[in-house]
């Protein structure tokens, strides 16, 4: 039987290198994807997600198992991402080349649509929606990404963002109301 994330984390706390490698393998894709979704820069996403793993290695001993490992780890990761965004905000105002938009919206849109007009319209809508997500307030954006990408429950999102479930519901409601307006414009 595969060891649970929590059991592996406990072993990492005792400096078990194999357990650390296994946890990294389990979470590397999710960590990188979530970091990229928040930061929108591949290099930053790689650095920050790796930093989250280093923090995991350094602080695994303090994991008490009160929450799920995934929640605990995502909290570290999301905090690092939000800190990074806050620190680099002034720079991004000057140089706006941090967005990884090299992939076309067609590459990112797997749903096949036969009608070319519908296809174009859908492509534009998704593009506008993606940009609208980027413009959301950081915590609203994090809540949406955790909900949509990681399929996390409100309770878990609240644990990651260290706020109440009611606050998460408000974040999601406001974020989705903003995004809905974007869709309605198209």
């Amino acid at each position, binding site marked *: 039987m595969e060891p649970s994330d929590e059991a592996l984390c406990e072993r990492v706390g005792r400096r078990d290198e194999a357990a650390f490698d296994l946890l990294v393998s389990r979470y590397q894709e999710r960590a990188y994807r979530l970091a990229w*979704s928040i930061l929108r820069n591949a290099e930053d996403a790689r650095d920050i997600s790796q930093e989250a793993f280093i923090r995991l290695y350094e602080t695994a001993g303090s994991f008490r198992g009160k929450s799920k490992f995934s929640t605990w780890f995502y909290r570290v990761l999301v905090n690092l991402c939000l800190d990074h965004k806050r620190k680099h905000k002034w720079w991004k105002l000057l140089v706006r080349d941090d967005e990884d938009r090299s992939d076309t919206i067609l590459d*990112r849109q*797997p749903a096949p649509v036969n009608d070319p007009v519908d296809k174009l319209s859908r492509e534009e809508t998704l593009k506008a929606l993606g940009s609208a997500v980027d413009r959301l307030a950081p915590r609203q954006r994090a809540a949406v990404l955790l909900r949509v990408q990681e399929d996390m*429950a*409100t309770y878990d999102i609240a644990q990651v963002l260290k706020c109440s479930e009611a606050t998460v519901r408000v974040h999601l409601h406001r974020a989705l109301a903003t995004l809905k307006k974007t*869709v309605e414009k198209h």
Partner: protein
Amino acid sequence: MARHPDTDLVPYLRGELPPAERERVARHLEECPDCKQDTELLRDLLGNLSHAIGQPPAVSWARYRAELREKLEARRAQVRWWRRPMPLAVSASLAAALLLVAVWGGRELSKSPDSLGPDEVVIGRELGLLQEFRTVERLDLLEDLEVISNLDRLASERQG
């Protein structure tokens, strides 16, 4: 009609509301066409969002893990540098310097003008005894400074 369950709609769609709340929202949606329409829009929106957010550029995971190992090693080396034991000569020199500072500092402190002189030490020792004297205990009777300062003049006037 009850208030619109705006903030409950996302948890409702995910099926994470407790049964009573779920029932309340479902009943509301049957009665409120606006909320029902909103819920459908939300469902579509949540479905489209994962496509809209997209996927990050591909990564070589072997290289990712190798980089991570390098960074972890670098961090450990940093920690080791701070925690490494000092050579005996350096430790002894530091200890001697600290001792010197402590002794010299102590002497300087003892020379400070705020330190007590021998008389004050004696008075301090006798303080308990002084507290027994009635005069000292009734110092409030001597508070009229004008009378005290004019005592000599008053005495000479009486004599004259």
